[in-house]
């Protein structure tokens, strides 16, 4: 019995250790960008989030267009479906799944910026969201 509990505990621990988190993404993107994690800038991340770019229909668009000005608030897709908040402080599921994170950076950066985001930008972006209380 004790053995079994110990095993379950170990499994949980190892699952926990291998799961992604905002800080593990920051470390990975910093490494990819060739900078120290401490060189990631929440201020640059916020600027990226709020920066407006010409959209396809002429209107300016930014991350905030769908995610709202406050990333602790739920957003809305173009067809009206709610988007869970981006800030890990209110939505602990954010930045815990590498495939998901990469998929949405790829899609949304090409939509808003008309190009992919750099590793540095992704790191800055998460650094900003992760320090929001």
């Amino acid at each position: 019995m004790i053995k079994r509990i110990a095993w379950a505990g170990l499994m949980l621990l190892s699952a926990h250790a291998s799961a992604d988190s905002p800080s593990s993404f920051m470390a990975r993107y910093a490494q990819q960008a060739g900078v120290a994690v401490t060189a990631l800038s929440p201020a640059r991340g916020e600027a990226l989030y709020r920066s407006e770019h010409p959209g396809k229909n002429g209107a300016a668009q930014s991350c905030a267009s769908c995610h709202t000005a406050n990333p602790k608030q739920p957003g809305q897709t173009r067809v009206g479906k709610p988007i869970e908040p981006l800030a890990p402080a209110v939505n602990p599921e954010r930045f815990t799944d590498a495939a998901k994170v990469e998929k949405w950076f790829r899609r949304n950066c090409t939509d808003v910026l008309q190009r992919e985001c750099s590793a540095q930008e992704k790191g800055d972006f998460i650094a900003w969201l992760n320090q929001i209380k």
Partner: protein
Amino acid sequence: MNYLLRGIGVLATVGTLSLLAFSLPSGGEARGDGGDDLMPRLTHKAWQQECASCHLAYSPALLPRASWRRVMGGLDQHFGENASLDPATQADILRFLEANAADSGRSRMGDKVMQRMDRNTAPLRITETTWFVKKHDEVPRASWARKSVGSAANCAACHRQAEKGVFDEDTVRIPK
């Protein structure tokens, strides 16, 4: 005598009631495969997860196979948005959509859509199918444009049980 009469009365009542019950349309069964206003009940992990992250997971029965091939072949330009997927997930979802498409013969909903479809066309939008247009011809144009609706792609704005696949008129409430 009195008891006998009463017994006959009870039997007659029970008989009539059960006959009535059997002759009434049994909604549940008739709609099991997606009857009149019910989408076929389908489950597919990637379809639900991926398609429904931006909009309702529209039923595959609402467009023919040729349309789904076009939709899934152009996900990087999906109605103005990049909805690209990894190739394996994309192929997986397309297989599911084709297997259950309007022209797959697998649902009554699909048959209805096909009855009014020009077989040489492969519309990209469900809202462009004759079936959809005819079904919604009573809805005033102005209500589609309301902020609370957003667009005709937002089924759930009016079909309050759309997420469950229920599109009965009784469940419709057009928001102000």
